[in-house]
């Protein structure tokens, strides 16, 4: 038989507890919304992987996972904001991979986002190289890491001989697919050509599980397509000039002359325009960009 005393206790608890829990949740959300809690940057006080390893008291793998998670979170909260800098990205990845050298995902992530120029990445391809080289040393059979290294040299550092070397190294690893050897050869031979670049980005898109990397690859493929189109349009423009005597003003001129059919548009649907010097260009409003540093037609050694 329950007494009035028991009833009072029951009702107080049933009412008070959910109320308090809700209030607590509200305050916590306020705290989170207010930006960085004081504790946010505190971890990086320990920049030395050795120090972290000692502090984790043997739970290295767990600590590695935590730092890896924080690295991704660190990137994710900053990416897309104006003037974002990613100074802590390397230390975080450094510590994570030092604690768990087989954390391959971290090397892949660093390969791209340490190298990418601001505001997409840290702009430190040199650090990316250092990171991935350590990854290869710890995971000698992982040809994807070698491929990452080759890519960094090729795309961001423009060091084609180092890139070819890396691809070559990768091709010699057990179970390496044949395209690594091909890449080595192509890079060594041609330097930076569109086909090579497209092949690389397609391979990256196909081999990675990481969503962020895949999106980047798609973007690049789109941009490369534009470059190819421009290359073709430039050649057509040259033919037009040879026939008519001056450069075309727009694609309509090429159509009239029978050189093309239809209206060529870039991958985002904007029509190509022609500059005063007859060179094809992207519509200024198009979001497509031409990646810098890639040799355009006319610069290739034949």
């Amino acid at each position, binding site marked *: 038989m329950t007494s009035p005393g028991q009833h009072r206790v029951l009702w107080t608890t049933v009412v008070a*507890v959910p109320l308090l829990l809700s209030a607590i949740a509200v305050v916590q959300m306020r*705290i989170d919304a207010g930006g960085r809690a004081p504790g946010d940057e505190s971890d990086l006080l320990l920049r030395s992987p050795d120090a972290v390893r000692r502090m984790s008291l043997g739970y290295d793998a767990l600590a590695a996972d935590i730092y890896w998670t*924080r690295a991704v979170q660190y990137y994710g909260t900053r990416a897309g904001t104006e003037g974002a800098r990613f100074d802590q990205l390397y230390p975080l990845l450094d510590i994570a991979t030092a604690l768990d050298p087989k954390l391959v995902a971290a090397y892949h992530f660093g390969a791209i986002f340490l190298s990418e120029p601001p505001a997409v990445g840290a702009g430190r391809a040199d650090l990316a190289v250092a990171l991935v080289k350590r990854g290869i040393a710890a995971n000698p059979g992982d040809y994807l890491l070698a491929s990452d290294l080759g890519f960094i040299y090729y795309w961001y550092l423009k060091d084609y001989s180092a890139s070819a070397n890396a691809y070559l190294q990768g091709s010699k690893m057990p179970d390496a697919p044949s395209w690594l050897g091909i890449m080595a050869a192509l890079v060594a031979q041609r330097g930076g050509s569109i086909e090579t670049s497209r092949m690389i980005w397609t391979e990256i898109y196909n081999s990675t599980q990481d969503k962020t990397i895949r999106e980047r690859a798609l973007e690049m493929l789109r941009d490369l397509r534009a470059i190819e189109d421009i290359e073709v349009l430039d050649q057509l423009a040259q033919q037009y000039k040879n026939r008519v005597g001056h450069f075309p003003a727009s694609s309509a001129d090429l159509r009239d002359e029978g050189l093309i059919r239809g209206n060529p548009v870039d991958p985002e649907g904007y029509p190509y325009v022609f500059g005063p010097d007859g060179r094809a260009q992207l519509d200024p409003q198009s979001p497509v960009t031409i990646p810098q540093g890639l040799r355009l037609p006319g610069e290739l050694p034949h």
Partner: protein
Amino acid sequence: MSATIGPVAVNTFREAVRDRVLYNLVLFALLMMGAAILVGQISIGIEQLVISNLGLSAISLFGLVMAIFIGVGLVYKEIERRTLYSLLAKPIHRWQFLVGKYAGLLLTLAVNTAFMTLGLAAAFLYVGGRAGRADLPILIAIYFILLELALVTALALFFSCFSSPMLSTLYTLGIYITGVFAPDIRSVGQFTKNPMLLGITRAIYFLVPNFHNFNAIAAAGHGDAIPSSIIWQNSIYAVLYVVLLLVASAAVFSRRNLK
């Protein structure tokens, strides 16, 4: 009401003092002195930083150990040793007894922390620092440590109402560690695309006391200002959570049949 809670609190404080538990202060003082002397040899400009980090971490750690160590026995010991029986025959509600025990331990921790702060100040002076406005972040960091200790004590008290000291220690420590890593747990949940895991990790994040909020040791070390909004929010958070735990403790304890 303070006629009943007050004496219980004072008595709990007296027990802690006579239990020679506060002798850890001597240990802390030695630690601080040793660190100060050691650091004095290095003199590459980071003495203040090292002493700040070491000192604050030690204050936090010592406080934590004491809060758990004494906290888990607060109610359990009184039941086990039957000292509670004569007390409950007096005109005092059981919840007043709980609040009194809590207040007594909190008082002990506050006194302990105050003495340790003085020791820290002494170490600072030894390495040639001067007291000034730049010290405010350190005091705030210490205040946050006190909030943290208040939470941990309430946790320990709660478990003490129904569980043995060993189990209570495990539970309290477990929740503390979970609370420290709560943001990471939530990140992992956000990573996975599994909606159930996402829900679970979110629930954990909001249920478990988020000790991560109170860690201002790094900021204090660099002298970063801590916005007053955070001070308010942390204080309110701590108060709400402590009240929640005390209510829960009272609920559990008030109808318990004492053997």
